[in-house]
């Protein structure tokens, strides 16, 4: 009896998940992918803070949307105040170019990158420590961290995204 109940529950779950996946793909084709919500952004930041605390790092962490506009940001206790704008700038770059900010470092002086930085108010930071958030083949946002070594920053945001399943 229980086995049948469990089986039917599993079947229902599969149908629901499958259905919603199909629906979201259809929606994405019409309107673009589902945007990153504030609660998702805050979940990413909370996960990043947990990861940072476990490694004894003090970071600023920022989440931006697919356009590079800020959704949420937090500076951990005793993180340097100036790390905040670095975290935001790295996340903006990762979102706008749709690739990890580490990949942008070598092109930072190219005319396209300099122009893009001018167009966004000079706020981009082309250093390692931010990665894009991809959903349905679209960059829907990016998360960046600053305050440790740039490799630690990047490891931190990757761990955070893995923790929340993005």
């Amino acid at each position, binding site marked *: 009896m229980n086995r049948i109940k469990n089986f039917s529950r599993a079947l229902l779950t599969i149908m629901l998940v499958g259905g919603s996946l199909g629906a979201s793909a259809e929606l994405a084709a019409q309107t673009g992918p589902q*945007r990153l*919500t*504030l609660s998702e*952004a*805050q979940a990413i930041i909370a996960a990043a803070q947990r990861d940072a605390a476990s490694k004894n790092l*003090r970071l600023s962490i920022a989440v931006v*949307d697919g*356009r590079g*506009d*800020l*959704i*949420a*940001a*937090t*500076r*951990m*206790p*005793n*993180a*340097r*105040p*100036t790390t*905040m*704008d670095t975290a935001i700038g790295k996340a903006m770059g990762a979102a706008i170019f749709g690739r990890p900010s580490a990949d942008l470092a070598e092109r930072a002086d190219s005319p396209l990158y300099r122009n893009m930085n001018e167009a966004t108010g000079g706020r981009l930071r082309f250093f390692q420590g931010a990665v894009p958030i991809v959903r349905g083949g679209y960059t829907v946002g990016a998360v960046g961290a600053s305050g440790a070594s740039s490799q630690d920053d990047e490891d931190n945001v990757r761990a955070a995204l893995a923790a929340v399943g993005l």
Partner: protein
Amino acid sequence: MCRRSQCGSVRSSGVLAAVIFGAAAAAFAAAPAAAQQRGAPAAPPGPSADQAMAALHAAQEAAEALDVSLSCAVVDSRGDLIALARMDGARFYTTDVARGKARMSALFGQPSGDMADFGNSPAFQSFNETIPGPLYAFQGALPIMRNGELIGAMGCSGAASQVDEDAVRAALAVFGSSR
């Protein structure tokens, strides 16, 4: 064999050398740890990050009750951002306005809404050019006090400026006493 006095001096200088060597070794052993500690960052007074997050949640609840979408920002007494949240549906530029109003309030220790006249003055214009980062002298941000000391400010943007300020006021209790 040496004479007693010489032996004594040799022994004592040996002890001295051992003490010096020991101290030097201890200093060297301590040096890498000290080098890694690149100086603790001395941040200006400000609310804690937990308080800032709690205040953002409180402001969000107030905004949801009024059916508006806001961005809110909490800054420390230097005007540096501690935490920020843009609610789903709030316009993209509201993050900058919320942050700019909060900075205004933090740098002058007043509600940003009380500073409209100053905001129109040439003195403010030159100030705004001197201090990096935008300042907004509009209603919607309030200072955060602790034991009579200004420790930061919180600002919201996205609705009518009075509504922005009401959302901040609803969240200020998170920071404890307002005096």
